[in-house]
C-alpha cells in the first residue's frame, strides 16, 4: 500500500494561543481583526453611554461635596467613562472559557444603575430596618421600608437581552439585535480562517 507522508501542520490549541499566534506571526491580521471588532463594538458602547442620564435619577443619589456613606454616588461622567469595550483577550474563567472581546461597564455606580432591580422581582432587597441585627448586605437597612422599591422605580425599567437584563450596555446590546455580535464573530472566524489558510502556504516568522 502506498504510504502517504503526513503534511507538516501548524496546530495551535486554545483561543489564547490562536490570538497570540495571530498577533505574533500575522500582525496585519491582528490589526484587521481589532479594527473590525472596534467597528462592531464601538456603536454599542456609544449607545450605552447615551443611556446614562445627565442628572441623578434621585436627588439623594446625586454627588455632593462631602461623603456621607460608602454607597457610591451617582456621577454621570464617571459612569460614562466606565463604559467601553476592549478587543483584548479576556481572562480564562474557572470553567475554561475565554472571550475574544468584551464590552464593559466597570464603574460601581454604573453597575448599580445597570443592574438594580434584577433580583427580587424588582422590589429591592427585603427590608429589615436599621435596628436589625446581622451583617448581611442582602437586606435593606433603611429607615424607609419602601426605599429599595422607590430607588428601582426611579431608575426606569430593565431591558432584557440575551446577555441579561440591564439599563446601559445590556440595553444597548438588546437594541442592537445581535448585529454587533454577528460582526464580531464573523471577524474572529475570518481572522482565524485566514491565519490557518496562510499557515498551509506560508513560512511564518515572528513579527519584530
Amino acid at each position, binding site marked *: 500500500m502506498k504510504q502517504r507522508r503526513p503534511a507538516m501542520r501548524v496546530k495551535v490549541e486554545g*483561543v*489564547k494561543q490562536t490570538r497570540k499566534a495571530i498577533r505574533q506571526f500575522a500582525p496585519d491580521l491582528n490589526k484587521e481583526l481589532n479594527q473590525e471588532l472596534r467597528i462592531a463594538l464601538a456603536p*454599542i458602547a456609544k449607545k450605552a453611554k447615551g443611556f446614562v442620564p445627565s442628572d441623578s435619577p434621585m436627588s439623594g443619589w446625586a454627588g455632593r461635596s462631602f461623603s456621607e456613606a460608602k454607597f457610591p454616588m451617582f456621577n454621570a461622567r464617571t459612569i460614562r467613562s*466606565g463604559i467601553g469595550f476592549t478587543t483584548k483577550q479576556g481572562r*480564562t474563567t474557572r470553567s475554561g472559557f475565554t*472571550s475574544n472581546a468584551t*464590552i*464593559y461597564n466597570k464603574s460601581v455606580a454604573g453597575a448599580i444603575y445597570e443592574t438594580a432591580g434584577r433580583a427580587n422581582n424588582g422590589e429591592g432587597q427585603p427590608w429589615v430596618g436599621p435596628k436589625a441585627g446581622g451583617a448581611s448586605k442582602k437586606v435593606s437597612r433603611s429607615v424607609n421600608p419602601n426605599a429599595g422599591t422607590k430607588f428601582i422605580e426611579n431608575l426606569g425599567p430593565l431591558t432584557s437581552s440575551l446577555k441579561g437584563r440591564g439599563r446601559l450596555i445590556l440595553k444597548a446590546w438588546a437594541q442592537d439585535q445581535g448585529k454587533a455580535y454577528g460582526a464580531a464573530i464573523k471577524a474572529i472566524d475570518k481572522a482565524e480562517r485566514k491565519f490557518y489558510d496562510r499557515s498551509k502556504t506560508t513560512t511564518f516568522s515572528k513579527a519584530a
Partner: protein
Amino acid sequence: MAIDINIGSKLDGKGFKQADTAITKLNKNTKNLARNFGLAFGTAAVLAYGRASVRAFVADDKAATALGTTLENLNLAYGSNIGTVNGFISRLELQTGVLDDELRPAMDRLLRATGDVTKSQELLGLALDIAAGTGKSVTQVSQSLQKAYLGQNQALGRLGVGLTKAELTSSSFEEIQQRLSTLFAGQATAAADTYAGSLARLTIAGNNAKETIGKGLVDALVTASNSTSIDDLIGKIDKAAESIANFVRETGEFIRITKSIFKFELFATDPTAFKGMGNISTSKSSQDTQRADAIAKKNAAALAKLTGVQAANQAKILKDKKLQAALDKANLALNKGSEVFDMDKIQIAAALTNQAQQLGKATSSAQVLQIANDTARLNVKKSILALEDAIASKDEASIIKATEKLNADLKILGALSGQNVKLQDIKSILDSLKPADLINLANLDAAIAKMMQLLALQGTKPSASTGSTSASTGSTGSTAGATIFPFPNGATSIAETNANVAALGGVVTQILPNLKEFTPNTGMISGISPNGREFNFTVNVNTGIGDPNAIAEAIENVLVEANYRGTLRGLIAV
C-alpha cells in the same frame, strides 16, 4: 463590580491540557519518589509490569508462531517471507495504530485465503482502511474480505461499505477491491493522524516495549537460574516456591514463640509497655547519639550565651545612642540658652528703660535710691554679659575695657549697697538715665512763679495783650489805676534797681517775700527793663533743639494750666 458582555467566548483547552500534564508529571514524580525510597509500591509496580510484559510477550510470541506455522503450511516460509511478513506487520502496526494482536490473525486469515503474501498484504491494507472508515474491527473486516475473496461478497455488504447488492453480486472481487480502494483510500493513515490514532500508536509502542521487556525478563530468569530452558526454569520456580512457603511457615512459628515470651497482647494494647527499656540497654549507636546530643546541647548553650552577649552589646549600643541623643538634645538646649542669653540682654535694656521711666515718676528719695540701686545692678549684669562676649571674642582690648566697666559698675553697686552716700553721689547714675527733656517744665514753673512774685513786688499787673503771640510780655503803655510798689534795696528807680542787681552779679542770695533781694538768674531772665512803673520781661527758655511751634505751644499750655491752678495771677499775653 463590573458588568461585562463577553463576545466570542470559546473553551480554552490549554488549561485542561496543563492540568493533565501536571497530573502526569505528579504521577511520574510520585513514582520516582517511591522508587527512590524503595517502597513496596515500586517493587509491586515493577513486578506487575514485568508480569504483564511476560504475558504480552507470550501472547505475541504465540501469534507470531501461528503466523509462521501458516506460512509453513502454505509453503510460503521460504526466503525472507517470514521476516517480510513480520516486518510488514510491525510497520503497519506503528503506522495505523492497530495492534499486531489483531494484525497477525488477520494476516494469517488472508494468507490462508489467498495463499499469496503480496495479495494478503494488499488486502490487509484495504482491511485497515475499511476498518478505519466504517468503524468495524480489523478482524471483522479481514474476515469479510477473506470470504469475499473466496466468493462470498455478501459479507462485505454487511460492513456497510457503500456497495449495493447488485454491485456485490455482479462484480468480481478485483472490481470490488478496486472500488473499495477508491472509497476508503487513506482512511487508516488519516485515522492514525488523529488524537485517538496517536494514542493508539503510543499504546502500541508501549505494548511492543512490554513484549520486548517480557522477552528480556524470561531470558533473564533463565540465565539467572542457570536454567537451560523454560522447562528447567519452571522446575526451579516450583522449588523456590516451596522454599518460600517453608520460610513463611517458620516465620509464623517464630512469632508464636515470641508471643509466648513477651506477651504479645500487652504490646498490642499498651504502647508504653517498652518505656524505659532504651535506657537499660544502651547500644553503641544510641551512645553516639547521646554524645552527639550532648555536643549539640553544648553548642546550643554556647550559641545562646553568644546571643546573650550580642544582645547585651546591642543594648549597650542602644544605651549609648540614647545618651548621645540626650547630649544632642542638651546641646540644642544650650544653643537655645544662648538665644535666651541674648534675650537677657534685651530684657536688661528694657529694664533700664523702665527704670528711667520710673525715675521720672519717683516722688521720694527712697524711690530714687531704689531706682538707682536697681539700675546699678542692671548695669553690672550688662557689664558681665559684655565681658563674657568680649572673652568669647578673644579681643584683649575689649576684655580690658569690659573689665574696667564691670569694676566701675561694681564699685557703684557696692557704694549703693552700703547706702553711705547721698543722692548727689549717685547723680551721675541718674543723669545717665534721664533723657534730655525737650522742655524743663520744673524750671519753667519756677521761673514763672518768680516772675509772678516779681510782679507782685512791683505792685503792677501785667496788662492783657491781645493779638500778640510773642513769648515776651510787653507793656501796653497805659498805667492808669496801677499799684506802685517800692523799689528793692532802697532804690528809687528802676535804674538803681538794675544797678543793684548788677552789683549782686546776678546771683540769688536770698529770696524774700518782697523780692527785694531777688535777682533772677541771668540765664533765665535776660533783664528787666523798667519803663516808667512797668516792667518788660524777656524769658529765655532753655529747651534745647526743637520745633519752635511746639515749644511755644508747650509754654502756652504751662501758662494756661498755671492760671487755672491759681499760681499765676494777672494776665499774660501769649
